[in-house]
């Protein structure tokens, strides 16, 4: 649907030059909820704006259904944006805002009217049609911004952190509503956020970005379970990192030796990776405490932190690294582990992920 190839975006010239996007390539599929996730300043907005046409890439191409987007001015691109600040027209009513794009497309009045009503119903704002946009709440403004961008039936909807201005509860509601709208309309959504939880719950696929680069593109589950790089593993959820020795490699798997001397099987993020030194990532909830001989790692239990749904065990390993194990709590069970005692750690074969360096 959207093919972005080797986009580079440099702002400024000479010594002030700043490269916001470095050789970014990605393909977004039809009807997909695609999320750009990354820390502040990594270039998410810049990438979105280059699709919309507000910045012009220094190099690379962007194609929409095979058509070159870069030759088109913003007003000719069949994509619409939901701006981070909503950018609703303050001198117009809710209905006039929604009608704007349709009027610019020179649609006949009756058709504009029926489309506007349809959109108002879709975002449940029919009662507010004649209010000025300054007279409605933040969540309602957000809905109007959505309706305005959806009304011209774009091929792609670009959303730049549309939920960041909302409070927690409304945010959760709107996440569900956005997902519903995307399914109902069948429009491709490109969604920008720096909230990893939001990305994991809403997306079909996620592109994790850092410093102008795309590090990994995958389904949420794959991103979480099999992070390809240290940054991805660290940015999304909690992770333990361990230095290991890769003994042998097969197709997707590798046999690794831990610092304790124990061996197990790990997944390879990069099938080109060779034997030798490597770093693995293990999620705290994928590991368990083990007192018997099966333990892969041993150390001293330093902290036991109760947090309602689960308990975190902090273990100081023999090589002085720290390892966290998370266990879900069940009612009525007593804490069986004591701080200061010896503890072993176990995780299943194939749970550990070898990271690209």
């Amino acid at each position, binding site marked *: 649907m959207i093919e972005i190839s080797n986009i580079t975006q440099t702002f400024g010239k000479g010594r002030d030059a700043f490269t916001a996007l470095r050789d970014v390539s990605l393909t977004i599929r039809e009807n997909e909820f695609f999320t750009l996730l990354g820390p502040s300043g990594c270039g998410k907005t810049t990438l979105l704006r280059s699709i919309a*046409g507000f910045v012009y890439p220094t190099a690379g191409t962007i194609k929409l259904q095979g058509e070159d987007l870069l030759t088109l001015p913003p007003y000719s691109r069949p994509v619409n*944006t939901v701006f981070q600040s909503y950018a609703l027209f*303050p001198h117009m009513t809710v209905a006039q805002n929604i009608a704007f794009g349709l009027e*610019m497309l020179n649609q006949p009045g009756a058709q504009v009217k029926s489309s506007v009503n349809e959109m108002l119903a879709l975002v449940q704002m029919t009662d507010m049609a004649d209010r000025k946009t300054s007279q409605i709440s933040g969540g309602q403004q957000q809905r109007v911004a959505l309706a305005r961008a959806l009304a011209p039936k774009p091929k792609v909807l670009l959303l730049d952190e549309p939920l960041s201005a909302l409070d927690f509860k409304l945010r959760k509601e709107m996440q569900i509503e956005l997902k519903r709208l995307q399914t109902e309309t069948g429009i491709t959504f490109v969604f920008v956020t720096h909230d990893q939880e939001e990305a994991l719950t809403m997306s079909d696929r996620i592109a994790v970005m850092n410093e102008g680069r795309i590090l990994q593109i995958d389904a949420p589950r794959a991103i979480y379970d099999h992070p390809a790089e240290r940054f991805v593993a660290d940015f999304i959820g909690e992770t333990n990192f361990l230095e290991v020795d890769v003994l042998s490699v097969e197709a997707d798997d590798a046999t690794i030796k831990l610092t304790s001397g124990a061996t197990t099987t790990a997944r390879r993020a990069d099938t080109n990776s060779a034997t030798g030194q490597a770093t693995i990532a293990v999620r705290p909830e994928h590991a368990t405490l083990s007192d018997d001989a099966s333990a892969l790692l041993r150390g001293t239990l330093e902290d036991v932190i109760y947090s309602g749904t689960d308990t975190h065990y902090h273990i100081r390993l023999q090589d002085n690294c720290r390892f966290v194990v998370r266990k879900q709590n069940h009612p009525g069970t007593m804490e069986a582990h004591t701080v200061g005692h010896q503890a072993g750690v176990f995780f299943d074969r194939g749970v550990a992920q070898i990271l690209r360096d």
Partner: protein
Amino acid sequence: MPVSTRQFDIRKQPGFTLIAVACFLLLYLPIILLVVYSFNAGKSIAIWEGFSLQWYESAWQNKAIQDAAIRSLILACCASAIATVAAVMAALATTRTAAFKGSSFVFAIINQPLMVPEIVTAVALLLFFAIIKVATGYTGMWYLIIAHSAFCIPFAYMPIRARLQGMDFSLEQAGADLYGKPSRVFWRITFPQLWPGILAGAMLAFVISLDDVVITEFVKSAGQDTLPTYMLGQLRRIVTPEVNAISTVLLGISVLLVAGFFFLSKIRK
């Protein structure tokens, strides 16, 4: 003695009130006197002889003043209209485009009439137009209109630019995103929010044009007196309260326009 822990307050300094009052008196006392003596029944501009409107009447009936007044109004209308259109375009170009090389130079060029001494501009225009007059033989009003338009631009430009800078650029981007071509986005999105700035700029330009003496005096052809240059000419001969009367009317117009200007600048975005 209690030690003051309050912040430094200029109003508490000795002599502050005195200086402030003196300044206001110097500024406004002459104007008040001018207005008062425009109602003088006698011929003197210094001795009060009772109230009358005779100088307003005689000014109103004076053919030369009528001509000058009409010329002043036409000139101010044309010049402020041209200057405002130019200023809107300049303001859009300097706030709504990506920072370009030499943009601060362009900014300086636009505001040049504020920086170059007016007398220099006046002499330069006199010489420049003299060449054109010789070449074309045209001696009409357009020299004055062009000259006034030029020096009014920065005055129209400033309030328009200020308002544009206070406006959210993402609104215009949203307009473009929703298939609005630049001209339609301007009229549908930019203009409805910018008009108080445009009107304020036009009013300021109008007042500045109405009030100009130096450039007009140098550029005008024979028989092209505006109100200010006519008054200047009168002062060289006999001075009657007629001049006071014209000044008072001009003052009234200016005060109205400037008050309107401040009102417009306050209209919420």
